[in-house]
């Protein structure tokens, strides 16, 4: 089971974990990223490249299934405007082995951050808008899987 979704609507992390649990692997790892209430942040605007984003996520999923024995995985990424505390992204993996599930789930996030065409704009409480810069730590994390 591979589920990839780029969507405006919110998702139910518990439901997605339940679906992964039904695959019978015994080990389900998941990660949820939310809008963190830093500084004067009021909202986040998520832009994407419709023709490419889902394709890029499918490629990441394919790499994960090549690296680890996986029963199923899910990647859900929201787009559009999100408020503080809102869920942005979910990655989840079901495997027979806990380290495979945890590593693959972490891999999906690290790759997604560096190769999936999404862009975040911060909207501050004073109305100022700022496109988020890429972070070296994200680049390093993605690179580490190649070593």
């Amino acid at each position, binding site marked *: 089971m591979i589920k990839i979704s780029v969507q405006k609507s919110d998702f139910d992390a518990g439901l997605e974990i339940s679906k992964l649990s039904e695959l019978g692997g015994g080990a389900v790892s998941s990660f949820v*990223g939310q809008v963190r209430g830093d500084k004067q942040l009021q909202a986040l605007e*998520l*832009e*994407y*490249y419709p*023709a*490419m984003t889902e*394709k*890029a996520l499918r490629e990441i999923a394919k790499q994960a299934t090549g690296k680890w024995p996986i029963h199923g995985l899910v990647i859900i*990424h929201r787009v559009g405007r999100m408020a503080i505390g809102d869920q*942005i*992204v979910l990655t989840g993996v079901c495997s027979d082995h806990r380290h495979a599930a945890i590593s693959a789930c972490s891999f999906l*996030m690290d790759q*997604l*951050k*560096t*190769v*999936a*065409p*999404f*862009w*975040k*704009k911060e909207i501050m409480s004073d109305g100022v808008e700022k*496109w*988020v*810069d*890429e972070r070296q730590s*994200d680049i390093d994390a993605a690179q580490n899987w190649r070593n």
Partner: protein
Amino acid sequence: MTTELNIVYFAWVRERLGRDEEVVHLPDTVTTIGQLVTHLQSLGTVYSEIFEDVGKLRFALDQEFVSLDHCLQGAKELAIFPPVTGG
């Protein structure tokens, strides 16, 4: 016969240009993305500013990441955008 290429822009590149896509007619001298960038810089001040530091930009040709020396031949769509920041 003129070669045409659809270019799509995202994030601050889109905002600075004030457009999300455009069709560009490619001169015969333009065969790589690097050459296209040079050509775009000649189109106006905003273009020349955006492409001044090309290291801050990423390019995807027909939805695949490519480098500046990649050939445009046969491609339908070029995307130009800043480094991705999803997740």
